[in-house]
Every structure is written in structure tokens, then in C-alpha cells.
């Protein structure tokens, strides 16, 4: 069951369907499932949705939904070729047929144009064993929200069956670098669906772009750009593309991260001579210096309650993760295993961390139970960096190297499910997983 290498048909309908997706498609990321992990996967049949003649060009919703569920590692979608029938309506469903195939859940649906320029997709999820309807719902996407609609249906299915909110209808941003360190180098800040599809460019520069990070409302990203010849922290709206420069101090301007309420940004500045953590209030742009130490303090991140800042510091001789209480500036060291622990992110429960951990000279992404001091290495790749959590905390995306190229990879929080998102275009680095993007409405 290990190393089960299987390429899920990278749904390549780009180009053919101009109207179906945003124009100016960049090179999307492919998905390759490396390790599905779980022995007991829920068997689900996602029957091809009824898509009328006016929807002929649209990517099949069922394919996108199946691929989403398969990537979670918790589902084993039935191959469409093995289905005995393709019901699109409750009346056409014969549960006995599906029981014979060992299917536990069945998803059917229908998509149609709603006459107002948009579409309506309604769908039903059945529990085959109990011959019971679990979910019946509808979603109304516009043409460019077609894939989001599929992801949203996958979210709903995932949540109904596992009890955990799905994170398929989310985005990732990342930095795509081409011809790095050459005179014709380009750096692109890209945004794509969480499955790597529909990549598009947010910002293009011939100077490096670093550390993209999401605002909690999912509307803005902050990042470091060297476009002026030196690092500056920029803020950009992902819908309008409007950009704004937040800082450009002498020296380091790096690692911006939004506070959970979105009102502040923690960052690293060396304006006073040494890299220290600062917090900027977005309302009045006032800066507050948080750390004060002659060693390097960097890579801040917030605890989910916004009351603590985690950061990496070598004040103890080696890079380790520290936690600072914003109320009284009390600093506490959190990591003790190994001589390199950095770039921590805290899970929503406030009790666990993920971070970059060096073990036997190799950089991995690790998970830690703070209370029990229990460290587990999640990744089997090397040179792993920049872990970023999915909003539901079930998986994390990180950057790693494969055949000398930077690629993105995803691993579940127990290390069992792994997949990769390589890019054919260039080196991809520094991914950041978006918060929940909000559901599409029903009309």
C-alpha cells in the first residue's frame, strides 16, 4: 500500500474551454498521490453528474469531486468504469447494485444553466447501507466558479461523512521562480485552487518574492517583495489586485503574518540594527517592538487566540521555538528535541505545533504535542520548509525538493497521507494555505 504511485488525471481542460475558466491560465500544478495511508477507506461512488448540452464544455463535476475525496486519503472513490449504472436521479438508484460493489456512500447530481447567466447544481448523497438520503443540497456557481462548486460539494460530502469540515474549496498562494539567479530570472506570486488547478498570477517581478501569507478574511495576502531593490512588505487584494507597501525599512523586512483577528501584522525588521519581531497595527500603521535581544529573532506566528507570539530565536545558541506572552512579554522556550527547530505554526487547539525540524542532518516537517513534549516527524522528504496548515487542521502544505527542483507537497497531520503538487513551469516555494473562502450561494 506504500508508495502507491498514481497520477490522478490532471484535469486538463484548459484552453479548450475559454469561457469556462478565467483567461490567462498559468501552468497549473499536477497532483500525484504518493501514499494513501489509511487501510480502511470509505468507499464512495461519485456518479457522473447530469450536465446538459449547454454544459458540454464544462469539466465533469464528478471527476473533480472524486479527485478531492481521493486526495484526503480517507475515501476510495469507485472507478466510473466499474459502475453498473449512472443514476442522476433518486428514482434511478438501486441500492442493491451499489451494495454488491461494496459502496458505502453514493453521490448523484445534476447541473443546468439557470437562465440568468449562472448555473445550478443540485446533488444528493446516499447512505447505501441504510438506503437513506444523507444530504440534498444545491449550489449556484457562475461560470468561473464551476470548479469551486465541485470543491464545495466535496466539502459537504467530506463533512457529512467524517464530521470534519472540508477544506477542498480553499486556495493556495505560492512563489513560482524561473531561471533563478540568472539575469532573466522571474518570480511570480501565484494563486491556485487547493488542488493546484486554476493557477493564476497575482504579481510578477524580476526580483525575489518571499513569505506570502493570508489575511484571515481570505481577501488579502501580504508578502515580501524585492522589486524596489530591497525587501519591502506588501499588501495585495486578491480580487482587485490593488497593492500597497507596508514597510521598507533599512535592512530586513520579512515574515509578515496576520493576527487571527486580521487587525495586526507581526513581522521581522532589523531597523534598529538586529532582526527583531515587531507588530504593526493595520488601522494606524503604528509599530510596536516585541522582542529585544542581541540574537536573531525571526519567523513570528500567532497563537490561535492571538494572545501569544511564537518565534524562532537562537538566543539559546541554536535556533529553537519560543513563545511570547503578549500580555507580559514573558518568553518561554517550547522545543527541546534536536538542534534546529524553526518556523512554528500552532494548531487551532493551541496544544500542538508544526515546524521545521532537523533530524540526523535532514530538514523535515514535524508535529509536536507541547504538553507532552512529543515530537513526530511527518515527512519523508528532505529539505522541507515553510509548512502551512489547511484551515481545518487536517493537512499541511510545505515546500520540498524533488530532483533538484522546488515542489509543493501535502501531508496529513498523522503523516499517513501524502501527495505532491509539482509544477512543470519552474521552482515552487513558500506555499500558504488560505482560510475558508466562504460558500457559494444558492439561487
Amino acid at each position, binding site marked *: 500500500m506504500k508508495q502507491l504511485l498514481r497520477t490522478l488525471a490532471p484535469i486538463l481542460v484548459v484552453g479548450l474551454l475559454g469561457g469556462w475558466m478565467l483567461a490567462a491560465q498559468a501552468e497549473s500544478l499536477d497532483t500525484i498521490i504518493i501514499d494513501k495511508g489509511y487501510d480502511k477507506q470509505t468507499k464512495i461512488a461519485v456518479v457522473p453528474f447530469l450536465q446538459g448540452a449547454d454544459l458540454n464544455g464544462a469539466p465533469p463535476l464528478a471527476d473533480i469531486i472524486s479527485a478531492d475525496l481521493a486526495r484526503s486519503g480517507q475515501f476510495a472513490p469507485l472507478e466510473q468504469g466499474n459502475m453498473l449504472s449512472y443514476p442522476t436521479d433518486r428514482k434511478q438508484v438501486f441500492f442493491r447494485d451499489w451494495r454488491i460493489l461494496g459502496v458505502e456512500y453514493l453521490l448523484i447530481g445534476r447541473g443546468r444553466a439557470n437562465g440568468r447567466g449562472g448555473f445550478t447544481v443540485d446533488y444528493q448523497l446516499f447512505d447505501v447501507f441504510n438506503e437513506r438520503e444523507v444530504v440534498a443540497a444545491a449550489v449556484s456557481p457562475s461560470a468561473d466558479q464551476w470548479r469551486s462548486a465541485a470543491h464545495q460539494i466535496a466539502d459537504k460530502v467530506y463533512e457529512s461523512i467524517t464530521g470534519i469540515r472540508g477544506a477542498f474549496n480553499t486556495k493556495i498562494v505560492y512563489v513560482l521562480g524561473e531561471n533563478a539567479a540568472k539575469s532573466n530570472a522571474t518570480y511570480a506570486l501565484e494563486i491556485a485552487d487547493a488542488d493546484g488547478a486554476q493557477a493564476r498570477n497575482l504579481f510578477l517581478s524580476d526580483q525575489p518574492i518571499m513569505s506570502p501569507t493570508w489575511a484571515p478574511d481570505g481577501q488579502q495576502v501580504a508578502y515580501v517583495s524585492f522589486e524596489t531593490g530591497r525587501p519591502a512588505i506588501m499588501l495585495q487584494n486578491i480580487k482587485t489586485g490593488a497593492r500597497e507597501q507596508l514597510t521598507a*525599512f533599512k*535592512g530586513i523586512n520579512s515574515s509578515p503574518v496576520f493576527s487571527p483577528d486580521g487587525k495586526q501584522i507581526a513581522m*521581522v525588521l532589523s531597523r534598529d540594527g538586529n*532582526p527583531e519581531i515587531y507588530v504593526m497595527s493595520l488601522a494606524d500603521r503604528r*509599530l510596536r517592538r516585541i522582542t529585544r535581544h542581541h540574537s536573531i529573532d525571526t519567523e513570528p506566528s500567532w497563537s490561535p487566540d492571538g494572545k501569544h507570539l511564537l518565534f524562532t530565536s537562537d*538566543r539559546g545558541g541554536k535556533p529553537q521555538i519560543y513563545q511570547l506572552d503578549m500580555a507580559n512579554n514573558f518568553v518561554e522556550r517550547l522545543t527541546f528535541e534536536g538542534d534546529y527547530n524553526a518556523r512554528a505554526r500552532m494548531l487551532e487547539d493551541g496544544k500542538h505545533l508544526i515546524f521545521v525540524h532537523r533530524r540526523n542532518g535532514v530538514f523535515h516537517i514535524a508535529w509536536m504535542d507541547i504538553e*507532552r*513534549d512529543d515530537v513526530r516527524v511527518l515527512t519523508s522528504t528532505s529539505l522541507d520548509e515553510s509548512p502551512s496548515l489547511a484551515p481545518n487542521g487536517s493537512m499541511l502544505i510545505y515546500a520540498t525538493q524533488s530532483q533538484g527542483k522546488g515542489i509543493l507537497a501535502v501531508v496529513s497531520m498523522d503523516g499517513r497521507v501524502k501527495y505532491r503538487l509539482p509544477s512543470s513551469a519552474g521552482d515552487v516555494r513558500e506555499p500558504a494555505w488560505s482560510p475558508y473562502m466562504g460558500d457559494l450561494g444558492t439561487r
Partner: protein
Amino acid sequence: MIRIFNTALRHVALGTLVGASFSLSACAVAAVPVEESTGRGAATAVQPLAQPASGGVSTARLSELYFQLQTLQQEVQDLRGLVEEQAHQLSRLRKDQKSQYLDLDRRMQGVAGVARSSGGATRAPARTPTQATNPGVGQPALRDGELYVPVPGSDSGSNAGTDPGANNPQPAANSGAADAKERKAYSDAIGLMKARQFDQSILAFNRLVVDYPGGSYNGHAFYWLGELYLAKSNDAKARQQFVQVIDLYPNHAKVPDALYKIGVVYHRQGDKDRALQYLNRVRGEFANSNAAKLAADYAKEMQ
């Protein structure tokens, strides 16, 4: 390989360079108001040293002082790291000591309780109610004439209920070197299973059972062998192992689970009647156990 710290340092260098040539624009940007928070660590002033240079201190002397300062800073950093680690170890040790004491206390109470209930005369290996209702984890109980204290696992797995590490048997307090070896063999086998090396794990469990006939881990070993064969879809062998548990260790904490699994295996093999027979047996004999709940659900699904 570009690592954060290297990058950071490179940026400092870059920043200083660029900063020098663009000092005008830097001033303009630096007009943003800054509030200083009251930090705990005292500020180390490097800059003031530069001022008195004109006041008579030689450059050589100055650079020597600077070198000393750097050495001191590094030294303090290393010492700080050491203190942090030792403070951490100390608090760990205190926690461990406390939990060891609580564990000992529990065992003592268990012994006292058993002595009372059996009149202090015979140590009959009777099945205690706690053992039946709470398989695997919980109160101390007598098994094979020995005190058996299951310790809730220190494993922090998200699936604590089914994690094999969560209910490892702990041998009696008077364990010698042989017991330690046996325990190691058992935990190695468990480790292999957790690492999903099922074949090696099967070998290891089989070796354990052969090497330590009558050993205190054998009940568990047979149970996990059953689970391993199930994972490999070898139903017949799986059933054999589960039957070993209930035949050889009728008072074992894993009996309800083994009964349930036998039911499952029979169902997988298509023998519905036998399956129900075993599932009902768990529900009847160990009504309050987790396995009974699972059996009830499974029986319902089978119908």
C-alpha cells in the same frame, strides 16, 4: 541550501549596503511612529562603544573590546541554552516522579483491595468486574496470579482508543532483567506494527510467544497477531490467533475484543450464524465493554 538564518544574515548585509546608498529614502520611510514595548531582557548596547573612539580609546583597544563582547554574547547564549534545557529536564523529572508515585499508589491500593476481597488467603485469578467492563485500560487486576496494572498509554495518538501503544501490559513490579528483555521484545514488535511493517511484526510476535512460553505479554501478542493477519486479509489465521486468546487466556483483558473480532472474521468468511453467535457472546458476557458496543453495531449492520 538556503536556510532561514543564512538568508537573514544575507539580508542584513544586503540591507546595510543598500541602506548606505539610499540613506535619504530610508530616513523618509523611517518616519513611521514606533512604540517600544517594555522588554524583559535588558538591552545590550553595542552602539555607544563607537562614540568614545574620538575620546582617546585606540581603535585596536576598541576592536578588542568588541571581540570580547561578541565572545561574551556567544558564551551567554550557549549558557542560556544549557539553562533552558536543564530547567526543562528538571520540570520533566518532577512530572515523571509525580506520575510514578501516583502509579505506585494505585498499585498499592490495588494490592490492598485484592487482599481484602479475597480474604487475604488465596490469590485466586478471578475475573474482576473492572477487567471485564474496561478492557485494556484502567484498574489493576489479577491475571495468572500476577498483579497486572495496565497503564494508560503515554502515547498521544489521535486514535487513542485503538492505538496499540495505548494499552500495553505492564509486568509485575518485581520484574528482573529477563522481564526487561521480554518487554523490549514486545515493544519492538508493537513498534514494527506501528511502523506498518506487518510481516516483520508478525515474525517478532511469533518469536516472542516462542521465546517466552507463559510470558506475561503472550495474551496481547496473540491478539495483535490476529489483528495483523486481519490487516493482511488472512482470515483463517487471524481467527486462530483470536481463538488462542480466549482459549489460553480466558481472563485476559483482550477477550471481549477477541470475541468481537472472531465474529467479524466469521462474517467475512460468510458464516453469518457463527458470527452472530460470537457477537452476541461479547454482548452477553461483557455487556459494558467497548467491544460489546462495536459488536452490537456490527450485528445491526450485518442484518
